[in-house]
């Protein structure tokens, strides 16, 4: 187990290094720079600003100095937003994204698994056909469309929820639904398909013939087995949900990380781009790491396979 964790950890550090390097050079390759704000700024002024921020140095030197800065734990300050450090931006934006993400995840997992299991039990009945219909709709509707529709009907027409902003719990309901819809239908479909497959396995018939109650069979045997692939999906999905969907944040005016990431790229705010990319990728790597360990714990077959090898 320790060797396994150690190996994973090394590979994580390596991936992170590649992310930092690639992002840095790709970012510098985008034309324009954070100081080119307006067309009327005299050249001598942009030039002197370029020198002040160190953009005139060779790119490798800039890279190593950034790497050094990053290793010493300093993400730097925004070049566009006055007096705002990258750490501060993360500290302010991440809790918002985290709250929305966790809410959406809770909705997606609970409703997804519930609906999936229900459809699997009612396999090939009208409930299952309804499920397929809802699934196709949900998977093909982009989140911006859902968000716009929800906003239009529930807040503009029915006046049930606030239109936008991030304030009370009520403000988070519509964004949570828009963010959760896609993962929900995906998880539901995954659960249903896995369970339908499980239901045809010989051990089910065997268990039934031994007189196990259908309820017990469903919950402690079939569902548990069908959930394994979902753990693998939930990991990366949780990252994309938590780090924020830019579109949903934009429509509901939510001050999360997605908004910052996009606006920093558009304004070429180098330290913010780097800081956020590193933060999000570290988060992703950590989640994948945890998922791997969870697999190891949940699925006894993995351990056996190791021993067999």
């Amino acid at each position, binding site marked *: 187990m320790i060797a396994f964790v150690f190996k994973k950890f090394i590979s994580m550090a390596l991936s992170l290094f590649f992310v930092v390097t690639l992002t840095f050079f790709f970012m510098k390759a*985008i*034309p324009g720079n954070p100081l*080119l*704000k*307006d067309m*009327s700024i005299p050249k001598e002024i942009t030039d002197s600003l370029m020198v*002040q921020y160190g953009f005139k140095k060779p790119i490798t030197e800039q890279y190593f100095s950034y790497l050094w800065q990053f290793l010493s734990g300093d993400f730097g300050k925004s070049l566009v937003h006055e007096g705002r450090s990258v750490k501060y931006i993360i500290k302010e934006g991440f809790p918002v994204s985290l709250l929305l993400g966790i809410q959406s995840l809770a909705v997606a997992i609970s409703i997804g698994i519930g609906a999936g299991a229900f459809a699997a039990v009612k396999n090939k009945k009208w409930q299952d056909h309804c499920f397929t219909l809802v699934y196709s709709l949900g998977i093909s509707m982009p989140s911006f469309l859902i968000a716009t529709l929800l906003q239009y009907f529930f807040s503009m027409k029915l*006046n049930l*929820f606030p239109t936008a902003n991030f304030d009370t719990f009520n403000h988070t309901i519509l964004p949570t639904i828009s963010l959760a819809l896609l993962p929900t239908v995906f998880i539901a479909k995954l659960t249903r398909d896995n369970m339908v497959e499980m239901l045809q396995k010989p051990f089910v018939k065997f268990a039934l013939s031994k007189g196990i109650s259908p309820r017990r069979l469903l919950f402690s045997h079939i569902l548990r087995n069908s959930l394994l692939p979902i753990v693998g999906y939930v990991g990366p999905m949780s990252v994309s949900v938590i780090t924020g969907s830019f579109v949903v944040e934009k*429509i509901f005016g939510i001050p999360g990380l997605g908004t910052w990431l996009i606006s920093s790229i558009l304004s070429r705010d180098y330290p913010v781009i780097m800081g956020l990319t590193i933060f999000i990728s570290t988060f992703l790597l950590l989640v994948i790491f945890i998922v791997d360990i969870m697999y190891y714990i949940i699925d006894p077959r993995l351990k056996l396979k190791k021993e067999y090898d």
Partner: protein
Amino acid sequence: MRKLFLIFCLFLLSCQSNSNKSSTRIKIGVSKEPTTIDPRKSFANDSSNVMMFLYDGLMRFNKEKKLCYGLAQKVDISEDKKIYTFTLREAKWSDGSPITAFDFENSWKTVLNKDFPSVYPHKFYMIENAKKAKLGKVSLDKVAIQALDNRTLQVKLNNPCPYFLEQLAYNVTFAVHKDDSYFEIEPDKLAFSGPFILEDWRHNNYMILKKNPHYWDKEEVKIEEIMLNIIDSPITLLNLFESDELDFIGGILSPLPYVARQALNESEILKTTPSTGTVFLEFNHEKFPFSNINIRRAFSSAIDRVSIEKNICNYHGKKTRRLVPSKDSFSSITDKTPNEYLEIGLKELGCKREDLKVTYLFNDEEATVEIAQILQQNWREELGVLVKLKKQTWRNYIKNFTEKNYQLFKISWVCDVNDPVFLLNIYRLKFGRSNKPRWENKDFLTLLERSDREFDENKRLLLLKRAEDLLLDECIIAPIYHNYSQTLCNPNLINVQYTQSGYIDFRWASFK
């Protein structure tokens, strides 16, 4: 099941948002988070309107849009119109300390410090030695800005400058409190000189401004609190406005959604204000084929300005053939058709129509994209030339035209100050900051310089008009329409002021 349904209904009811309005609090939609609230670092539209809530200049605009005294009480101008002596009124910063002439001297000189990252120091370049100091050629002490005592400030200009006072009503010239190191931290410890102070700022979310208890003109300020709601999406802002959660959107603070322009056009509360500015094309006159004046004329005259005025601006932005907004700006002087110009040009260049490979550069705003399509169609129908369209994001776009990497592109100017010389100044010097085509003309420069020294306002405007004629005759630019700004305001909110350059002022606003 029925129970569940009941619970759901109750839940929905409990979610009902109830908006109770107090009559001294306004909510405004803002689309971009201000990048700074330090006026010395301000640059164009971005955060400048918010700064106008927080700071007062030596001058300001009154309710009738006339320039009047702000923090200055009176100004004495010397005979030769070069020395300005301001007497400041007894006013206080929001922390209670007095606003002095030294605050102004320090702030202005900081902007001109060569190490200070200011974007608009050239707004001070009419002051003696200002430019040299910014370039590091002379020390800051040599700059002719001097506080004679606590309430007297003296400034010496290089040349008479008719718009100098008007400029003092805008951002870069606002003073900050003497201790300038605190802009690096959170803004709650700042002192402000304007009608409002910053109370709370949740980034990318909202800003709350409160009435400044120490503002010198506080009797006039009726609004106790302004909530600036920062939301990126124009559609969401419009939705918030329509569900009465915002009192004001639009203009420089938050562009109205372009897709909704037809629907908005029928709305009675839509307010359109013309601004001192123009949307026009610039030709790269150093590159084939626009090195030829007749080709330029052909492309300029082929533009269907009437259709753009109708379809893009809904008749709000006036079609024009001139750079400076005026009454007869659409009158045409050409005697040839676009095609005739093109024929002459092609003959002079010795090439065929098929050899004209033209790319039109524009940025990715919705209106701009539609204009590009109209232009492409005009040029194909009128001249038989298929122009390639190249859309770019803002930073790429700026990079391309700063490096002269274009043949033809669209540009839009709005001036801070309502004076024709501002638009003409773009082309004053070959290597001037905004002269992207690097156009140079001695007569043009002489006319502008003569206008600088001219004391008689009418004669000065005449000189400027001649200079403009010269520029248009050379056809370096092809003006299309004059800029305008549109806003939506709660009908109960009255006395909101709009300046010429599109700024919105709430200091006199109140609810009916």
